[in-house]
């Protein structure tokens, strides 16, 4: 009974607070809605679910600091099932029925792209993705087809091929074969790598594509083995990647393997056998060594009882938080206003603000006082370039005594320098 009374009292207090806040900011309608289009079911379901929860968590923290313009934020999540058609429908309903001015999502580039071109841009709504890495978006932005409404908090493929080329040449490999998955992601990465590795002074062997979910890849492997390459760059996902690696090693391929970040997975190591992967080397995105990152990690661990180890968790947190800060900053809650405000709250020279309720409260005070802020979050200082892309630090990992261990760290500046060198 007492508990029920207490709950009722808390509810009343919350309603009263909402009214009070609504009174303070009469310009906007409460609650403020933020749309999220993420795959919480389907093949990406497990990853998507964690990402969706972390997005929700970012909203909760923001609400703890008083919400946007005095209104609590409602996080409206829709499932894409990892499918473009479902994703577009979900985004349409969010924009047209729920009236959200900004969308967070999606994960796969293949889903984010149709949402951007057929929903976000025509409806003038901001879209910010935690995970899509295809360079197609950069190209679209350059052609002026995104109206600047596209942002992402995850580094593009560009840095992945640069890292792989760097690993190949630093190890002194002279002839690197490439086997890549025949998707947008794989084709883009392989094509970039072909240029990058030569520019850094390495050499290229056969470059072979493979189709997903086949039983055996013997023909592909035999083709890649032509000319006896001294190393292999494998762009794959764990299950097929394991099949290819086993056939590659069995047919006499070198164990000098360079792999993309998706293969940094125990499923892959166990399926191939860790004893065969002693010379394997891979790259992955890393979080910068900053206090703001540590703050996020602590907050996350307190809330979920586990560290934020998983793809896209840091980046989705920042995608949501920076969008909400921009909403606070914007004069009105429309796509174009939020787009400009995202630039404003990440501008160099502003006062740095960090994640968490305290950081958000401070940010809101500064915004209210008309002072510029710069959000430094779970992925470090977000600095979107003119195409809405960010750079991220990278790390290099190996299996040492069978354990996946970080062996090198490249800061954002290192990566930017490397890419600049390659692009000139």
């Amino acid at each position, binding site marked *: 009974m007492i508990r029920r009374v207490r709950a009722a009292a808390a509810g009343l207090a919350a309603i009263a607070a909402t009214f009070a806040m609504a009174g303070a900011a009469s310009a906007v309608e409460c609650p403020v809605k933020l749309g999220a289009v993420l795959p919480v079911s389907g093949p990406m379901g497990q990853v998507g679910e964690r990402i969706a929860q972390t997005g929700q968590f970012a909203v909760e923290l923001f609400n703890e600091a008083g919400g946007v313009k005095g209104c609590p934020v409602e996080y409206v999540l829709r499932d894409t099932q990892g499918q473009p058609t479902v994703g577009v429908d979900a985004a349409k309903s969010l924009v047209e029925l729920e009236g959200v001015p900004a969308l967070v999502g999606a994960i796969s580039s293949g889903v984010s792209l149709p949402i951007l071109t057929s929903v976000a841009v025509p409806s003038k709504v901001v879209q910010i993705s935690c995970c899509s890495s295809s360079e197609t978006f950069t190209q679209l932005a350059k052609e002026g087809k995104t109206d600047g409404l596209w942002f992402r908090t995850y580094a593009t493929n560009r840095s992945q091929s640069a890292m792989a080329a760097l690993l190949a040449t630093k190890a002194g490999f002279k002839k690197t074969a490439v086997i890549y998955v025949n998707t947008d992601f794989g084709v883009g990465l392989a094509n970039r790598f072909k240029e990058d590795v030569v520019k850094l002074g390495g050499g290229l062997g056969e470059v072979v594509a493979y189709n997903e979910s086949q039983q*055996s890849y*013997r023909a592909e492997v*035999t083709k890649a083995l032509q000319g006896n390459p001294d190393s292999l760059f494998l762009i794959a996902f764990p299950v097929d990647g394991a099949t290819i690696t086993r056939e590659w090693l069995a*047919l006499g391929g070198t164990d000098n393997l360079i792999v993309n970040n998706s293969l940094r997975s125990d499923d892959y190591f166990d399926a191939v*056998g860790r004893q065969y992967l002693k010379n394997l080397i891979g790259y992955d995105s890393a979080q910068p060594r900053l206090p703001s990152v540590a703050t996020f990690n602590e907050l996350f661990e307190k809330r979920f009882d586990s560290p934020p180890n998983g793809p896209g968790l840091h980046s989705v947190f920042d995608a949501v938080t920076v969008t909400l800060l921009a909403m606070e900053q914007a004069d009105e809650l429309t796509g174009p206003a939020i787009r400009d405000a995202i630039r404003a709250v990440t501008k160099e020279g502003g006062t740095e603000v960090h994640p968490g309720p305290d950081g958000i409260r401070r940010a809101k005070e500064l915004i209210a006082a008309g002072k510029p802020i710069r959000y430094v979050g779970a992925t470090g200082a977000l600095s979107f370039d003119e195409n809405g892309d960010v750079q991220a630090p990278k790390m290099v990992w190996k299996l040492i005594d069978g354990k996946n261990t970080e062996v090198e760290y490249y800061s954002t500046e290192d990566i930017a320098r490397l890419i600049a060198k390659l692009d000139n």
Partner: protein
Amino acid sequence: MILQHIADGLLSGAIVALGAIGLSFTMKILRFANFSHSELLTWGAYFAVIFFAVAAVIGGGYGTPIAPFSFGWPLLAALLVTAALTSLLAIALHHLVFARLNRMAGHMTMVFASFGVALLLRHLLVLIFGPAPLYYSSALQFAMLLPGGVRVMPDQVFLLGLTVVVVIALHLFLTRSRTGISMRAVAENPDLARVSGVDVGRIVMWVWIIGASCAAVAGVMYGLTVQLRPELGFSLLLPLFAAAILGGAGSLYGAVIGGLAVGLSENLSVMIIPTTYKPAVPFLMILLVLYFRPEGLFGERR
């Protein structure tokens, strides 16, 4: 490199050949295209997983490998046991589904029923064993280097040898034994065979046993040289049909030569076309055969 592609083609073709024998026989004798045949390969492979698990409990398990192969005597026992279990499964399916339908259903109904059975069988395996790939042994077998720079895995050479043995045995069975001769009679004309005193029901059983046993052996050997996935058989469906159609329904040698031809053309094709188009090669073969020689290489014109 062409030698390597030829070797790979022959070795992977041996699997297709074994699988296609059963498919070809059911097509001719039972007179329908059995789309669930490829699932018998998968079930055979997974039956062996159970066999090894049980063997591990009893003692012995996977056994000591006999050089240069990656497996020991238990594998040969596993082949026999899985062949028997897969045959039982095929006979059960025959009684539960195909025999009941065959009396009244048209050709297309049978095809769709077999599709349904295939889906059911595949997803049962997902349900029981999960979608993740399995391995009989996590040890990796390295290829032997043959003269001419060709690399082959000993296990695959064993499979090719086994295929030859199976084909010779089947040849003798079909030409020398009474059951084999009756089987050919039923294939020619079931009604005439029946009035001549052939027990057609018993012959149908034998067709399933031969087909399922060959499928089980192919499945286990495929699982051994690559890995086990619930989609193991499904991914071979098109090559199997291409081989059976190319060889001509009901022809033992047709199925074997068809299988080897499919394996060879898939592997050699990557020298000319991008690897991403490789899965289309069996399709192309089916089209060409149906266009130029619809009865297949060894089939008889009706």
